[in-house]
């Protein structure tokens, strides 16, 4: 290796690049799957407007993509004190559609109730006990303090907002909308490892008071009957869906007139509802009533099932394709070790013969070639692992911003533990042919060259 430094370095580098790619695929996949699994825990159902299941999960759980059409607040009330309440432990409304831009990144702003942080968990520990939200600073917002907000850990760190600071959410999720009234940060959550870390949660009462978020009184009254059985009034939407929602009140009217009073329920809508049922039958009953009943306003989905389908139909196959490609790259890199060493065997036959003349056995010279092959793979493998994780760390902000997946340099996958021994075994395999050539070296003839 020392004698052929450049060739060895280039061979090791090609191996390193292949391994780095493999690391990226493995780690990003594992983090993605882990986050998919974690984020969809803590409640049984998500209830939202009619539309794609995946869109509902992505917007509600992962804060990605556009939310679906909202549903009337009266529908949410069914879970609180209506016909569905008997099955429900907790129902947390979500109002989506606002955002906050800071440090070059965009964060979703979610209008919700304090119950999000007290009534449902965000995951479970290995022993099955639920993990509840805790605060690293401040407290939960209070229902009657309309303009209070709680920040996820990452959102707080990235925006630099602290308890006592104020911020103005932007209307819409594009980040180019009008700026709303300001909210005061009263609490910052501990990291949860979920998409909620990157979100800003504001009091839903304050959300409704923001310009453009409440329905005007007349259309709302007209819409009211439809919530009892007819189709929803599609145009009465919240901020996320369309700026052309003509039946909204003028931008300033509601906020000015009702700044210190809750918006009437008939003028409210919610984007989705997180439903925690009392028992295992609750989700089945609600699924029957919501999805198969006469009431066609909303849909109820089990996020875990959607996430599983997402993993099986999209994430898994994509990962497999990428993994096959990276394995092929590593195989090509491994073959380059074979070619590199094999091509050098003729020039090395003399050195091998000298070693044999000095007493090296056939197996000793064979081992030297195998060790060289394995060392090259090890060198390339370790460099590749470091390179892969460095790329992960460098790309983390961009990936987090675009895909909502939080990555760190030290994020390791258990599969990486197998990678290096696997590479070494592979290197031993590809090194076998040149090693065999070394084994068969004709000492007398090679010494005479």
């Amino acid at each position, binding site marked *: 290796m020392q004698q052929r430094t450049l060739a060895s370095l280039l061979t090791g580098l090609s191996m390193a690049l292949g391994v780095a790619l493999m690391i990226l695929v493995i780690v990003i996949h594992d983090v993605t799957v882990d986050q998919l699994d974690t984020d969809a825990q803590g409640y049984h159902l998500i209830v939202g407007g009619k539309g794609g299941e995946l869109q509902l999960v992505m917007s509600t759980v992962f804060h990605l993509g556009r939310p679906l059409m909202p549903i009337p607040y009266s529908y949410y009330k069914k879970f609180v004190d209506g016909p569905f309440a008997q099955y429900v432990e907790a129902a947390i409304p979500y109002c989506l559609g606002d955002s906050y831009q800071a440090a070059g990144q965009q964060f979703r702003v979610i209008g919700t109730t304090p119950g999000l942080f007290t009534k449902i968990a965000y995951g479970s520990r290995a022993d099955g006990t639920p993990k509840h939200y805790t605060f690293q600073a401040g407290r939960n917002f209070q229902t009657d303090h309309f303009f209070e907000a709680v920040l996820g850990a990452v959102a707080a760190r990235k925006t630099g907002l602290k308890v006592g600071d104020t911020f103005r959410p932007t209307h819409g999720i594009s980040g180019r909308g009008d700026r709303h009234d300001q909210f005061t940060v009263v609490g910052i959550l501990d990291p949860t490892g979920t998409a909620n870390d990157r979100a800003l949660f504001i009091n839903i009462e304050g959300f409704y008071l923001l310009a453009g978020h409440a329905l005007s009184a007349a259309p709302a009254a007209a819409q009211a009957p439809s919530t009892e059985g007819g189709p929803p009034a599609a145009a009465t939407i919240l901020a996320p869906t369309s700026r052309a929602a003509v039946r909204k009140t003028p931008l300033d009217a509601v906020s000015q007139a009702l700044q210190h009073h809750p918006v009437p329920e008939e003028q409210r809508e919610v984007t989705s509802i997180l439903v925690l049922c009392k028992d295992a039958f609750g989700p089945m009953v609600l699924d029957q009533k919501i999805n198969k009943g006469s009431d066609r306003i909303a849909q109820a989905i089990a996020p875990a099932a959607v996430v599983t389908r997402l993993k099986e139909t999209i994430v898994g196959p994509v990962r497999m394709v990428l993994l096959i490609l990276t394995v092929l790259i590593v195989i090509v890199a491994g073959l380059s070790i074979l070619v590199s060493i094999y091509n050098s065997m003729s020039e090395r036959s003399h050195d091998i013969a000298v070693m*044999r003349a*000095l*007493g090296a056995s056939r197996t000793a010279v064979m081992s030297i070639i195998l060790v060289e092959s394995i060392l090259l793979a090890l060198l390339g493998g370790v460099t590749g692992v470091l390179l892969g994780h460095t790329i992960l760390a460098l790309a983390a902000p961009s990936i987090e911003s675009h895909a909502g997946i939080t990555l760190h340099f030290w994020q390791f996958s258990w599969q990486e533990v197998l990678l290096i021994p696997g590479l070494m075994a592979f290197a031993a395999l590809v090194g076998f042919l040149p090693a065999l050539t070394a084994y068969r070296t004709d000492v007398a003839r090679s*010494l005479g060259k």
Partner: protein
Amino acid sequence: MLLLENVRKSYREPSGARLPILDIEHFALSPGEQVVLCGSSGGGKTTLLNCLAGLTTVDDGRILIGGHDITAMAEVARDRYRARSIGYVFQTFNLLPAFTALENVLLGMTFTGQKADPRRAAQWLENLGLGARLQHKPEALSVGEQQRVSVARALVNRPLLLLADEPTANVDTGHQQQIIDLLREACQHENIAMLLVTHSPEVASQFERVEQLEQVNRIKKCLSGK
């Protein structure tokens, strides 16, 4: 110390026929004895050295070195015995270019089954006047220095037998005498038997015992290069 009995060696020609190279009924060296082997090119001198080193197997006969019959040894045992008991100085030095002078000498100790001793290797190089050149690679050494490194490598394990295959063929007359003196003194000092192959009458004339291969070998004519 060295005894050959009825040693026969032949090569297979492309036609499949056997080409006899060596047929030596008897040849012996005493411990510490220094013998020159002369002979025409293609006479089988190098083949004989390779057989003595155990690098090439004989067709028939026995080769005893220090009382051990190397023809009866398995290859691995023969390799180990060669590492410990036989030193080999080549015509072209055969130093490994990527290794320093010290590493080249250490390489000679690597395959003995015992731990390589850098101090002993360095001591040999110092004894041969290369104390200041330990970390130099062959390309940075003169021809004479390279040959001294190869001598140190061959003798560092204190072998019973030193085989020297035309060690002065590639050096000028001045260096030639230095190398011969060096080999003779070192072998004498360490009581190592030496079998030196040379074409040089000047070199041969300095030894008490000079053997002509043609007189030892019953095969009188071989193809060049064999």
